[in-house]
């Protein structure tokens, strides 16, 4: 319950233990881990000095391999080696064919809405594959930092929809990581750049990764990053460049798509290597091993590469144009264009972006690492390690949220590019006499027709008192939190009947499935689950105690009467004792809740005090004069 981690100027909050926090860039091609140490954010390498962890997971009968080891054998063991899981996460079976480039896995077409891949180690989902990558990074953090992580910030493409965000959070839960916040990748990049330069003004972040594209327009003002608009494509990235080049190689070498998975992988690897080489050279020689033996040899020029990938880059430029319009700014108001993501190494991308914005883009932070570094900075702030820091990120929801109305039309409730957190309500009514139930279909997207939008969830409101058509007043409230996750509630106003759901998309995993996976992943030898929960609850209790102590030390005497202070101290003592002695995690959990309840008044008072101080810097009369008129 740490209230305000803001302290008065010149006076720092009570010293507290430095919490271990990290930023994770969970990428399509590579993933990274970064943390802030001694005031500097940097990515952390593995034991052999590699910073990038290839986002590749190989399932074998003996266990799971993650990263470089898995990537190396991908061509030999294509069915058990899963890469680009990010393209699948939060997707439905029905989405697979729209993902463009072929995914060479053995998908199980069953009744499940979540795409499952058959491997020698059993069926896996993209969520589990991502969890393996997160686990590997969590382990790297423990090894390097010598302690348990208190929490992490995981980055997601700004254009990820609710289902993809939820699935990413589920993956973290499976990996045993506490997520402080899901952070949009371009915003993370802006943090890494902005803090570096202290540049106030409007900035564009162009983020082209392996499988996703994002563009965000932000205004930076004294440490506050306000996202004005964002847009993108969660199925467009460097992988598509590779696929375009691979198609060309197939055509040139007389191979077809039936050449076998191993050969296709090999051609894809050649295509990627050629694309990367063309970031420096004008031409590159190609050699492809043919399945029936022998080789095909050829050459790819940068002109030819441009011809192959230009249509894809033009798609991103179109999105840039729309996002600028949404933000209400023109290209000449944009002070900097920041390039993020490995695919912006392609010179052709830089050329076309420079042409559109009319200025050379910034490429001076390693485009692979900038997102992880921004995430690490934000994780450090969220952990409360920088109590005096002014930095604040105000992000937006990338896609409009609405519900289905009569005739399969979408009624938007929260338009895209609304600053989050946000809550909006709208009233609907019944259309039949005596109607006692109403189906609510939650959708995300910009199109008029529900069938063109992404279906997020369906639920029903029952027990509406029978009335004539149009008399019932059903209020549907959408609330999006700071992670960009949606919660929907429907309430009949006259009777108070309500139904609400956390939007767990139809193609996500259920809580039960996740708990099952968690349990399966833990050694059942003892009652480990119980032990683990007790440890977690104790850590939570510790967090709450420490925060409250820091609050009391900084302003307890000023804001509380002697009686109240005694009450708060008593509550602190009770929780400290319970956390130390109790063996039942539920008991510790209850004690935390009790303390929060007992001290709620103090929390409120501190927040009010913070607001009063924030507003004290502004004098109303001064402002009224400036405006040339008196207040009413």
């Amino acid at each position, binding site marked *: *319950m*740490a*209230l*305000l981690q*803001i302290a008065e100027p010149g006076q720092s909050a009570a010293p507290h233990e430095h*919490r271990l926090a990290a930023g994770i860039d969970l990428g399509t091609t590579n993933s990274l881990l970064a943390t802030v140490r001694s005031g500097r954010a940097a990515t952390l390498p593995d034991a052999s000095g590699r910073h990038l962890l290839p986002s590749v997971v190989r399932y074998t009968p003996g266990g799971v391999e993650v990263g470089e080891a898995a990537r190396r054998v991908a061509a030999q063991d294509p069915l058990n080696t899963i890469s680009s899981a990010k393209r699948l996460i939060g997707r439905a079976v029905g989405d697979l064919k729209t993902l463009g480039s072929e995914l060479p896995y053995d998908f199980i077409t069953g009744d499940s809405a979540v795409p499952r891949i058959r491997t020698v180690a059993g069926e896996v989902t993209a969520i589990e594959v991502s969890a393996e990558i997160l686990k590997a990074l969590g382990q790297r953090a423990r090894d390097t930092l010598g302690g348990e992580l*208190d*929490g992490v910030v995981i980055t997601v493409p700004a254009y990820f929809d609710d289902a993809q965000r939820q699935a990413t959070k589920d993956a973290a839960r499976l990996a045993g990581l506490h997520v402080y*916040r899901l952070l949009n990748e371009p915003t993370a990049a802006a943090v890494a750049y902005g803090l570096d330069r202290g540049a106030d003004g409007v900035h564009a972040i162009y983020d082209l990764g392996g499988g996703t594209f994002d563009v965000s327009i932000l205004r930076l*003002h*004294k440490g*506050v990053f306000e996202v004005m608009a964002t847009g993108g494509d969660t199925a467009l990235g460097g992988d598509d460049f590779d696929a375009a080049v691979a198609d060309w190689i197939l055509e040139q070498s007389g191979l077809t798509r039936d050449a076998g998975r191993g050969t296709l992988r090999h051609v894809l690897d050649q295509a990627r290597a050629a694309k990367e080489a063309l970031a420096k050279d004008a031409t590159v020689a190609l050699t492809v091993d043919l399945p029936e033996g022998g080789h095909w040899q050829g050459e790819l020029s940068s002109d030819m590469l441009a011809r192959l990938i230009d249509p894809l880059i033009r798609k991103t430029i*179109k999105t840039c*144009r*729309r996002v600028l*319009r949404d933000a209400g700014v023109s290209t000449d108001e944009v002070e900097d264009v920041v390039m993020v993501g490995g695919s912006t190494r392609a010179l052709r991308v830089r050329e076309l972006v420079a042409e559109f914005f009319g200025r050379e883009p910034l490429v001076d932070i390693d485009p692979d690492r900038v997102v992880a570094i921004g995430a690490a900075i*934000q994780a450090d*702030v*969220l*952990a*409360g390690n920088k109590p005096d820091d*002014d930095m*604040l*990120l*105000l992000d937006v929801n990338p896609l409009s949220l609405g519900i289905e109305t009569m005739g399969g039309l979408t009624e938007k409730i929260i338009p895209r590019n*609304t*600053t*989050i*957190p*946000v*809550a909006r309500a709208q009233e609907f009514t019944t259309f039949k006499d005596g109607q006692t139930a109403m189906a609510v279909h939650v959708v995300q997207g910009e199109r008029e027709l529900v069938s063109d939008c992404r279906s997020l969830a369906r639920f029903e409101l029952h027990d509406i008192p029978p009335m004539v058509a149009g008399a019932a007043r059903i209020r549907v409230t959408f*609330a999006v*939190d*700071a992670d960009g996750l949606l919660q929907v509630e429907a309430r009949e106003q006259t009777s108070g009947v309500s139904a609400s759901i956390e939007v767990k998309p139809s193609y996500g995993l259920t809580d039960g499935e996740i708990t099952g996976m968690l349990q399966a992943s833990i050694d059942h030898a003892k009652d480990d689950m119980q032990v683990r929960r007790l440890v977690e609850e104790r850590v*939570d209790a510790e*967090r*709450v105690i420490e*925060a409250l102590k820091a609050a009391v030390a900084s302003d307890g005497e000023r804001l509380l009467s002697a009686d109240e202070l005694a009450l708060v101290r008593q509550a602190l003592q009770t929780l400290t004792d319970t956390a130390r002695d109790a063996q039942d995690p539920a008991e510790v959990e209850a004690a935390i809740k009790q303390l*929060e*309840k007992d001290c*709620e008044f103090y*929390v*409120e008072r501190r*927040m*009010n005090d*913070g*607001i009063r*101080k*924030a*507003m004290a*810097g*502004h004098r*109303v009369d001064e*402002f009224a004069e*400036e*405006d040339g*008129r*008196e*207040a*009413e």
Partner: protein
Amino acid sequence: MFDFSKNYFELFGMPMGFRVDGAELASRYRELQKVVHPDRYAASGEQSQRMSLQSATMVNEAYEILRDPLRRAQYLLTLQDNASDPQPQTLNDPAFLMQQMELREALERVRTAADPQAEIDALMGEIAGLIKGQIAQLAVQFEDSSADQLAAAAQTVQKMQFLNKLHAEAEAIEADLEEVL
């Protein structure tokens, strides 16, 4: 947490009225979010996080309303309109309605114009000018809170709604035209 019964002007500590200093409003918004935003409570207990979420949501809502002239005007009317009839009045201005019809027809003709881009630019400029005029009207009408002036403001608000809708449609056409580029 903060007092939810406060009106949005009070929340931002700004004088209640139609004229609002945008820079000052933005600066107060940022200061408020620095105090209440969920990022300030990421490592705190659930209860603090919930309170912060509610407060930050309200601050965002207040900011959206106060910075948008039409929504601000509507909000001011709801604040001052304690006893009077909440039924929307019909817009009684034939000249304005005629102009709307003409603009709408002009919009429909854009796609078939010789130079659709120039045509839509001109139309958007015209509509933006009309909106500006209505905003200036509102500023005068809210100067004194007499019943007559407020009734006039309510009429202006309705005109603004028409014009904003037209502007949104024009924007959609412009976006379509750009897509074809």
